[in-house]
């Protein structure tokens, strides 16, 4: 059977140029900024707003800003008693620079600063490999980070043993306190949250009611009332004459609050595990403890890692509320420094708050990026 080929194409059409919108800058602008009349108006309004605000903002933050100086006169205009020309307005970074150590460590004795620094170094050294999915020995790493590290840090920061000078918690402050509060909140809330979530899903009515009451009560009220409870009521609840440390009270308040929220996140994960997994574990003859630790929880927790990280972010931001029960976390100490006579200027509050906001932002943004990264790694579904 032969086939005669009647036509073979020997000349090809000339290649078309790519559409304008994909090739040139003007095409891109037309497609992305001026696709329709409505789009054009919106773009122009946004552009006008940017042109109006951005130069002033950059000028305020960087160009007009004062970067060096020993006291408030560096950031005051001549008619306010300083050296700057009248009408000057800009950030006073000299003040942040001058107070930087205080913002980081509070009133921690300056000659003992190696202790929090060492703790920070240990933290980074343990946290970074823990967060990298490819690093081996996650179990050992978790043990070191979640159990050994807190114990070592406790003795290192508080002192009073091994010849270390005792440093009262009232001297602690700044970013250090923010990080300690949120880290302890995280370390306590994870296991407590798991227990509460399991209790809430258990079939024992009394246990279940107790867990539901606790979770819903704590989730129904603002953190500030829980903190008030910890700082005002806790001493009343304990034996007469007790003098429970103020920092410890805040820690308890934050941990209680975080546990209730964590419990709900983990419950979401537990509910998402198909019933077959529970039944298969039962069929294998595993007891409750084995069923949970080997079959259900590993899957459930993996499922809700993004939710857990979001809870961490929320907790990190919420620690700033201890300012209200007059503790000096990062926000508290920055706010307290506004009243410091050495640096009272009209621009001090704004500068300090922008610095504190930026610090909080770095941590939270980093955590949310990490959460997104994990989410992408865990998400095996096909995207359209």
């Amino acid at each position, binding site marked *: 059977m032969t086939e005669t080929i009647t036509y073979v194409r020997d000349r090809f059409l000339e290649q078309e140029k790519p559409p304008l919108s994909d090739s040139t800058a003007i095409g891109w602008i037309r497609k992305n900024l001026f696709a329709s009349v409505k789009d054009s108006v919106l773009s122009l309004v946004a552009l006008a707003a940017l042109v109006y605000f951005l130069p002033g903002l950059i000028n305020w933050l960087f160009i007009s800003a004062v970067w060096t100086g020993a006291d408030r006169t560096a950031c005051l205009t001549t008619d306010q008693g300083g050296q700057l020309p009248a009408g000057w307005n800009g950030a006073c970074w000299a003040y942040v620079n001058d107070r930087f150590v205080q913002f980081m460590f509070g009133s921690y004795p300056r000659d003992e600063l190696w202790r929090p620094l060492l703790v920070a170094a240990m933290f980074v050294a343990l946290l970074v490999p823990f967060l990298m999915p490819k690093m081996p020995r996650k179990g050992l790493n978790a043990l070191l980070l979640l159990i050994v590290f807190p114990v070592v840090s406790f003795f290192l920061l508080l002192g009073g043993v091994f010849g270390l000078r005792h440093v009262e918690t009232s001297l602690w402050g700044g970013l250090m306190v923010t990080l300690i509060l949120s880290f302890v909140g995280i370390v306590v809330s994870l296991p407590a949250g798991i227990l509460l979530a399991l209790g809430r899903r258990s079939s024992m009515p009394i246990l279940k009611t107790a867990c539901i009451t606790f979770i819903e009560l704590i989730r129904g009220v603002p953190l500030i009332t829980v903190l008030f409870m910890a700082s005002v009521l806790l001493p009343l609840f304990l034996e*007469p004459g007790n003098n429970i440390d103020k920092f410890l009270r805040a820690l308890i308040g934050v941990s209680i609050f975080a546990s209730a929220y964590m419990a709900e996140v983990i419950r979401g994960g537990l509910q998402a595990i198909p019933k077959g997994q529970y039944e298969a574990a039962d069929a294998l003859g595993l007891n409750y403890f084995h069923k949970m630790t080997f079959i259900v929880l590993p899957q459930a927790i993996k499922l809700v890692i993004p939710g857990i990280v979001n809870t961490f972010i929320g907790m990190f931001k*919420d620690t700033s509320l201890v300012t209200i029960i007059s503790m000096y976390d990062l926000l508290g100490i920055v706010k307290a420094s506004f009243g410091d006579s050495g640096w009272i200027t009209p621009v001090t509050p704004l500068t300090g708050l922008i610095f504190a906001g930026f610090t909080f932002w770095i941590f939270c943004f980093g955590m949310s990026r990490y959460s997104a990264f994990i989410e992408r790694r865990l998400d095996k579904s096909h995207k359209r």
Partner: protein
Amino acid sequence: MALADARTGSGEPPKVSLLYNPALRSVVYQVVTLVVIIGAVWYAWNNVVQNLARANMTAGFGFLNSRAGFDLAQALIPYSSDSTYFRALQVGLLNTLVVAAAGIVTATIVGLLVGVGRLSHNWLIARLCTIYVEIFRNIPPLLVIFFWYLGVLALLPSIRTIFQNLKEDPNAVFFISNRGIYMPAPVFGEGFGVVLVALLIGIVAAIVFTIWANARQRATGQRPPVLWINLALVVLLPLAVFIVMGQPLTLDYAVPGSFNMKGGMVIGPEFLALYLALSLYTASFIAEIVRAGIRGVSHGQSEASYALGLRPGQATRLVVLPQALRIIIPPLTSQYLNLIKNSSLAVAVGYADLVAVGGTILNQSGKSIEIISIWMLIYVSISLITSLFMNWFNAKMALVER
């Protein structure tokens, strides 16, 4: 075979140690839990009694009837320092509700706009909305409150500057100062009630008319001009009555007093800082929820509606949004609840909300247990009512499946 025989032969379940009996175990666990809880409560109660006795204090809510002795900057119901603690708490609760309601409305609008904006094809708008969300989502709300209160509102012109400006421009009625925004307050004269009744009648008539118009559209396919007639009913009717009654409304202007502005209506900087911070902070979360909701509606839905000949606006309004709402409502509820709870941050700037008023009473009277129970009770009730309402709304919106 032998095994099976042995099992069936005995006729009773194999002997298991009582230790492994699930029913017994469960009872034991629960008894232990109960004992631990009761023990803890008893221990705490015992200590409270002893601690109170040491401090020569008594427990109970009788103190609520004693004189408060402090002033509150913003009170929606008559209040003076001679009022009772109970009255002060009522003022605080109202202030909480006011700032929460205002915040929820603003946060929803801003969040909706920003969330839709993030999905815009317009590159600039999408980027700006992303920047907004990423900034506000990652900063503590308390810091945003301080930012407005100490960083922005405190830098507004002082009252003295306002007085000076008033000399140059004596006709000004609207002032922005670091002590708040002053504006004319409406004073309702006699006969204003009739206008309100007219407004009410107009609204009811508009609703009735809409129902009738819908029925008519279904029956005949013709739709009367609902929007215009409704506008006339709701706006023109009360306006006509207002003019007929002789305009029973006067304005009370803010005028300079000795140290401060007198009269008029003032929105304090505390309220403004809290309101702006709560709205903008929560809006960033709502924007993300809205975005996720709209993206959660399958692309095929909008394509199908275009295929049916709907215009883009109709497709969004009639097909995409109703489905997106189903995804949006549950997380939106928790954001509303968060906003209500975050309004307690008022205490940081001294806005007289429930927590701030309660904190003052707590400091004055030392009734910590009572005050904290009141707080918890009220907040839990507010949370409960809000979630009940949103659950009802959610059920109404939910897909009715067969």
